[in-house]
């Protein structure tokens, strides 16, 4: 009798359940650029339902930016990111990925360093390339004694994004020091998603949420700001964060890069090859769409890659959350 409460208690579903409703198209940056259904989840799921040879979705699988915007809108609760990564796993690995896997294996053989603090910030490469912003972030999050930083995660993040298999041993080596942490703050939203699955009882939070919770940062947010939420972290914990940012809107009045479905519009649209610098990114369409029709004075970002893209596209000052707090508070 209760069979038709289809989403109640239902586990994540797969491509066979795609109803073709097109809701994923509405939020997909690749769709916005191409207007080509074959490059969207609907395109490859529907094609797979109707006789696709499994080598065919390579283009859509490769083009996906993994912004994860499509997942919270999918009424069938399909594990779209998981499916895309699984399909990527089935494509044969290019040279750089094989080298990456060797690197991870070598690192796994080395002893694990003992943690020096009770909390850890797992940075991304963009943050590491901006030491001033990184230092401010660390100080805002608790200070150097209380928080350590680690770039140990880059290879794991990259392997995840490429859909590479990470062996149990390698994963354990990565997770062991994290298990001892009171708090894990993660800059990369895809890694955040997987850490939450791997360490279900740990306290894990995205960098954007961590910094925007700081009183000194909040104090300097204002109604003429456009606050650009980092899409991956947001979509990976959408049900909770949609409410979190809505409260921030109520208290501070700033605009967000949210569409009418309260999905974060990515300010960049980079697939893996573009993020790795193997091909030229083309963010123009996305940044234009984020900024279109806004009356704002400043842009506040959670993610440094998006800062660079928005700086290029607009004349407004673009600041990272960590740079928002007053100097004496840092």
């Amino acid at each position, binding site marked *: 009798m209760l069979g038709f409460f289809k989403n109640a208690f239902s586990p994540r579903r797969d491509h066979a359940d795609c109803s073709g*409703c097109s809701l994923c198209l509405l939020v997909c940056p690749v769709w916005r650029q191409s207007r080509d259904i074959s490059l969207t989840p609907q395109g490859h799921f529907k094609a797979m339902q109707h006789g696709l040879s499994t080598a065919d979705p390579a283009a859509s699988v490769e083009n996906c930016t993994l912004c994860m915007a499509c997942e919270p809108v999918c009424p069938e609760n399909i594990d779209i990111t998981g499916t895309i990564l699984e399909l990527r796993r089935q494509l044969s690995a290019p040279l750089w990925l094989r080298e990456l896997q060797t690197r991870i294996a070598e690192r796994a053989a080395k002893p694990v360093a003992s943690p020096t603090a009770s909390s850890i910030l797992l940075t991304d490469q963009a943050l590491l390339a901006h030491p001033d912003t990184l230092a401010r972030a660390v100080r805002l999050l608790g200070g150097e004694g209380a928080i350590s930083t680690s770039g140990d995660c880059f290879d794991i993040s990259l392997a995840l994004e490429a859909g590479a298999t990470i062996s149990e041993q390698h994963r354990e080596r990565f997770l062991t020091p994290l298990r001892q942490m009171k708090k894990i703050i993660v800059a990369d939203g895809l890694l955040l998603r997987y850490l939450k699955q791997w360490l279900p009882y740990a306290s894990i939070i995205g960098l954007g949420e961590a910094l925007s919770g700081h009183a000194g940062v909040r104090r300097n947010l204002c109604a003429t700001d456009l606050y650009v939420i980092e899409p991956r972290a947001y979509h990976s914990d959408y049900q909770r964060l949609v409410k979190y940012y809505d409260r921030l809107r109520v208290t501070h009045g700033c605009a967000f890069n949210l569409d009418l479905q309260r999905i974060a519009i990515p300010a960049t649209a980079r697939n893996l090859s573009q993020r790795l610098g193997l091909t030229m990114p083309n963010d123009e369409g996305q940044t234009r769409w984020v900024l279109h029709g806004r009356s704002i004075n400043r842009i506040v970002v959670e993610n440094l890659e998006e800062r660079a893209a928005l700086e290029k596209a607009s004349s407004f000052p673009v600041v990272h959350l960590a740079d928002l707090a007053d100097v004496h508070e840092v």
Partner: protein
Amino acid sequence: MAKSIDTGTMISETFQRKVIEPSTPSAYSDSCHVGPDALLGIKRQQTNPTRWNGQSWQEFAAALRDHDIELRENIAARGTFATDAGGTAYGLPHGVVIARSAAQVSALLKAAQQFRVPVTVRGGGLTTEGESVAFGGVLLDMTGMSQVLHVDTDALTVRTEGGIFWHSLAEELRRHGMDYLSAPLNLTSSVGGTLGVGGIDVNSPRLGCSADQALSVQVVTPRGNIVECSDTQNAELFQRVILGYGQFGVITEATLKIRRYTPLRMHYFYYDSLRIAVEDMQLLNRNDASDYSGILTIMDCAVNLLVAFDSDEREAAFRANWQSHLRGHGEPGFALCMLRRYVLRPWKLPEAWFLFQRKRELFPEFRRSEYMRDGLMHDRTVVFSRAVWKFWGSKQMVIPDLATSAEKFVEAVERGNAVCRKYFPHYTLYCVGIKLRPEHKAHYEMSCIPPDAEGWAYGCEFEPMIGGQVYSRDYFQSFKNAIYDIGVDLGGSYYRFGGMMKGYIRRVFGDEVVDRHLAMKREADPAMILNRDVIF
């Protein structure tokens, strides 16, 4: 050989490809919804077309190549469009073209006319009777034309390409503080598809159907001419294209009326009688007492009348003048009613449990905090549409409907409800009024608007909740026939009379009207290539 997809322009070869075996064969077998219990002896009315035989396809493909039109013939591209939202009609096109401009569509139609190749136009593909499914020939995917061309906030109009989803249009309009007037509550029907079919919203009792919002459209005729038409320019073509099920041209652009965006003041009234709820809704419509109204049933003894307003003034006027006339209850009052009902009928407790569960699931969805501010609902179309997909959407959707004049509507709803009861344990009825524009009478001929409706037409969708159940296609078909037969009996019409239900068209409209339209169609489309088998 025709052009294939050039993915290389999108991305360099980050990965090399290798052939992969399907990982879970069961996924494919699970997706089959046709049960083994096909009912024998039911008179079938459906006219599922036979597949086009592919004659002259190669010559046609070569002609497209000459015009630099990308034609996709691989199974991935074709398989994507194998069915529509209904999921009961299946067909594969020979090839797919993504619409990119009126000139390209024109070249395509000229070649199709020359080689007699059927062209099926698809917007959102949200038909449920296979109207947007290609049984051979070319599938023209209109979503490739999704640009908003111009928003005029003074004249309150927007010019947009025809393939755009209503939701994408709303996203753009909101950056200007604007909104469209009315559109289907599902986010992903397209402007072009909707202008050809109708477009009913909960503000249609006041603003009319979406098709009536169109001030003018750019059409590519079946012979490939690009024509702008409106009530004053090429009016005859305009009359046939609006509500014309894509028979007389492809809508490539449209100018629509828009309005300033407002959040909603929502009220819900609950009834244990369908008849009384319908009568109260009609009372509100007749007296222009609300900005939005519609009925959604949980069961036929638990009926929700939604009433909403764009402004405090309109809401205050409703409270002062009309609220006391409504015979429905608020939530607590209705809970007491239901308590009384089930205390006296303990053997119906499973029904009460169902109601309770449904309320627990459904109600919070309509009150999500991120869409509510100061008691007002923002972005109602998102709230309603997401609920529609979440709770009613599935790979198979059977949604027959009836459209009648105001006078016949209660009877249509009650008879349709009895049919639903007979066929399915759980179902939903969605009823709404449609304000008619007398000056558009010519648009309404042979459309979803019933011929005898004056002032308002009324529509009711009958949607079984299929869930995990498996029903045969014949079972669905006999259910649909039973609903549609009521329409014939009452002299009404249907929102979904195309596609597999085209057998009903002569029965409903009569030979004289149908033959006249058929003659116009033959004149406009000599090879009868455009959206074949939908109506004619």
